[in-house]
């Protein structure tokens, strides 16, 4: 325990070094900016910025990208409260009470309690991550290829089951992702596959242009169909809620943090689910549930705390098991790998100084974000008033250059545009894109584990059900899919159909 505590202290001290602090600061600013601007999600923003981190080294690069991730969470809140358009999908629930608060002149209090809730959840979430990281990674270290294959199957089944759209479409998208992940050199024998003689494909389909296309270009194309919403222009005065409001919000923040972390630790759990559940719980335990949807500060507090706790918790499966649960974490995993580090159980053995610094930077990032956002909230409000066409052009330029500078070739730009158009079509078809992205990353790992398992067992596929851990994990994967199919457990779909109903605002109350 002493040595673990020593690692924590070491990590936090390293994160507090001026250079890391600077990158956390820059990341928080960029992240909040991205979160504020509807049209560019955290996954695309991080993918665009990856080329800038090549010269930084692994720690500053990951510190900055993590800060961007956390910054987007808070930035999305500002747009939710002031414009009633969630900057990020995880901020959807914040709109329900945040915007009514803003309309009644309490925007400052909504943003203030969101910042306080986010800070609390961020710190508690990081502490829990620190506590869980070593035991989980030690457990995963005992996994051989058979167990690893089963674990990856569980990860993919969770990602499929917790996304919107039909399960069949989610399954097809996962398979498309796996197929794309197979392009390039065979991970076992090194022979080229599905490259059709194109040398640009020998390294496989690059994740960064795919993410920028699916989550940047396609979002932008979709937003060209929409009329720009108008922000609330009333001046924001005090960011501190009243004493009574703070008291009401304190328990909501605690409960929201608990729900967000407990659900966020499950790989593939979309952020909107714990956020919605925390909100629903808060409404249930409230003495005045009728206030929810009309500006209840507990609604904002629980949603924001849950949202940020989920962001921290989703790092647990990424860092300890190497399973990214969201597209944003898939980019994060890509950033680790570009820097020669593979997330997973060996991370804590091979690169303890890096991983503990990164975890330490989560604490620093959350504090920086809190300090930064109080004085800067007026700046973010002004940014919301920039006409969307200028923002669209800026986003397109940065996407174009992000793809081009990856390997200095036009091929990656065309890949990005192609995936942008595909992403737009997938959006129209209601086919979820997150399973595709995660499958691209996990595909090569899954294939390697499968082939190694079958080589070790002389081609006997029963090894997957005769090994207890593998059998248990595959049983879990089966259960997840079966429950999803049989009971129609489609939380995100139900939620998104509720929230995207333009005519039925009254129905938005959960």
């Amino acid at each position, binding site marked *: 325990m002493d040595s673990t505590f020593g690692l924590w202290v070491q990590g936090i001290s390293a994160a507090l070094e001026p250079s890391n602090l600077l990158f956390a600061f820059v990341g928080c600013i960029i992240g909040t900016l991205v979160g504020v601007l509807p049209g560019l999600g955290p996954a695309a923003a991080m993918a665009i910025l990856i080329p800038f981190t090549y010269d930084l080294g692994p720690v500053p690069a990951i510190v900055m990208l993590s800060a961007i991730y956390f910054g987007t969470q808070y930035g999305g809140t500002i747009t939710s409260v002031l*414009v*009633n*358009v*969630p*900057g990020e999908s995880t901020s*959807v629930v914040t709109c329900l009470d945040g*915007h009514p608060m803003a309309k009644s002149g309490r925007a400052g209090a909504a943003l203030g309690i969101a910042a306080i809730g986010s800070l609390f959840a961020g710190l508690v979430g990081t502490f829990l991550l620190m506590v869980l990281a070593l035991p989980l990674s030690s457990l995963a270290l005992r996994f051989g290829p058979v167990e690893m294959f089963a674990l990856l199957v569980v990860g993919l089944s969770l990602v499929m089951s917790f996304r919107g759209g*039909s399960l*069949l*479409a989610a399954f*097809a998208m996962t*398979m498309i992702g*796996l*197929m794309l992940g*197979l392009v390039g050199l065979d991970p*076992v*024998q090194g*022979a080229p*596959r*599905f490259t059709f003689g194109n040398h640009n494909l020998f390294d496989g389909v690059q994740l960064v242009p795919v993410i920028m296309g699916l989550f940047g270009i396609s*979002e932008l*194309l979709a*937003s*060209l*169909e*929409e*009329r720009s*919403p*108008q922000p609330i222009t009333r001046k924001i005065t005090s960011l501190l809620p009243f004493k009574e409001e703070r008291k009401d919000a304190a328990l909501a923040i605690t409960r929201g943090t608990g729900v967000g972390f407990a659900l966020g630790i499950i790989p593939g759990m979309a952020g*909107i689910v714990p956020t919605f559940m925390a909100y629903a719980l808060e409404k249930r335990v409230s003495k005045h549930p009728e206030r929810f949807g009309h500006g209840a500060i507990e609604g904002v507090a629980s949603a924001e705390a849950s949202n940020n706790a989920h962001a921290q918790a989703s790092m647990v499966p990424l860092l300890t098991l190497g399973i990214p649960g969201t597209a944003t974490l898939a980019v994060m995993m890509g950033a680790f790998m570009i820097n020669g580090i593979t997330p997973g159980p060996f991370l804590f053995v091979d690169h303890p100084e890096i991983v503990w610094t990164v975890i330490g930077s989560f604490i620093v990032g959350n504090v920086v974000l809190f300090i930064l956002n109080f004085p800067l909230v007026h700046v973010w409000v002004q940014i919301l008033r920039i006409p969307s*066409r*200028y923002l669209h*052009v800026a986003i*397109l*330029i940065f996407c*174009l*250059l992000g793809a*081009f500078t990856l390997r*200095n070739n*036009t091929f990656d*730009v065309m890949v990005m*545009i192609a995936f*942008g158009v595909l992403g737009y*079509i997938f959006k*129209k*078809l*209601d*086919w979820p894109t997150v399973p595709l992205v995660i499958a691209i990353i996990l595909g090569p790992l*899954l294939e390697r584990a499968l*082939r190694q398992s079958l*080589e070790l067992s002389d*081609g006997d596929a029963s090894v997957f059900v005769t090994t207890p851990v593998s059998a248990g994990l595959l049983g879990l994967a089966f259960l997840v899919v079966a429950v999803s199919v049989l009971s129609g457990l489609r939380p995100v*779909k139900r939620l998104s*159909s509720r*929230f995207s*109903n*333009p*005519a039925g*605002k009254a129905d*938005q109350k959960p």
Partner: protein
Amino acid sequence: MSTLHSSQAPAGRRPTNPLTRFGAKRLAAAVLAIVCAAFVLEASSYPYMDWLGPGSGFFPMWVGSLCLLAALGMLIFGSSPAGNPPLPTDGEADLAEDRTLARMRIGGTIVILVLTGFALQPIGFNIAAAAMITALLLLYGTRPVIAVLAGLVGAPAVFFLFAALHVRLPVGPLGF
């Protein structure tokens, strides 16, 4: 990005979405089935098993076949027909006009992106980006003078920003 709409403002209203019709979903499933069949065909050209165990074609064959099955399933049974709910019918003509304008903007944006992508290396970033910014802003309804000015100022600004971050952007035959 999800959108949540205020009852007072029509902000973010989407035009009716033709692709969410059931037929379009089946068409997409048919296209996917063809792609998967081609993938399986290509996978069959790699060894399924070799002396070590599963060969290069083993996993692709399974993945391609499962995807083909899923595509056929969507083709036969259809995936969820749920899409955006129909919009209120106030101003159908406005909506049709919006839709046409949106399609023009989307198509134009894609064409401009592709052209810029191909032009980056031969003519350099500054000229390509200036043209891109101007063309996009004109497409999005900005006044010509402002669009041209934004292109002339924006492209070099981005170039110098990247240079400051030690990221080299392509220069054209004229050296900029």
